């Protein structure tokens, strides 16, 4: 079993158009590392200076990982991770 990662429209260029892909890892950080191995280039859109980009939201099941443990948040098989670019502007 793996972890399902839901990919927003704007990042589907990295996943050949797939809305959801599988990845594995024990933490969000490892999961993103595995995603990068499968879909090169995607990590830089999510992470900057070893932290989640400020305007990218990553959710573990129903929770924003910023309110859990950030990139160190543990994940397990069967979880769903959702990536959503924050809607923001000035």
């Amino acid at each position, binding site marked *: 079993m793996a972890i399902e990662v839901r990919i*927003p*429209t704007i990042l589907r260029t990295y996943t050949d158009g797939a809305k959801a892909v599988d990845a594995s890892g024990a933490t969000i950080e490892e999961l993103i590392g595995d995603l990068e191995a499968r879909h090169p280039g995607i990590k830089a859109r999510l992470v900057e200076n070893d932290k989640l980009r400020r305007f990218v*939201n990553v959710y573990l099941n*129903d929770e924003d990982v*910023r309110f859990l443990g950030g990139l160190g948040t543990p994940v397990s098989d069967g979880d769903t991770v959702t990536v959503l670019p*924050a*809607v*923001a*502007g*000035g």
Partner: protein
Amino acid sequence: MLTISRELVDQIIAHATADHPDEACGVIAGRAGVPERFVPMENAERSPTFYRFDSMEQFRVWRDMDDNDEEPVVIYHSHTATEAYPSRTDVSYASEPHAHYVLYSTALEQFRSFRIVDGVIEEEDVKILEPGV
């Protein structure tokens, strides 16, 4: 071109007017490019110069759209001191290439719509459907 009902236009203007001088923001969900369901969002920044959807509210709204086979047809926000034209910040964070980005200026009472794709702004015509027509 954005085709939108008068009722939805009035809802955007009412939300922007109520939150003035802070920026107001929200989504209109729909299918096949037709805006239908008005979803006002909280501006987590509560600022006259910036807006950001609350992350948990955005998660719930995006999941509901997914469940309903809807998409964010319109993403709107207000400018409260300047014209209804996308700022540099608006362009740098625009992340829904299929959405109509609607701006309403409470200062100038301007309602305008744009596509923002790969950092390029393109203004489009707005066709408002009047009730009973």
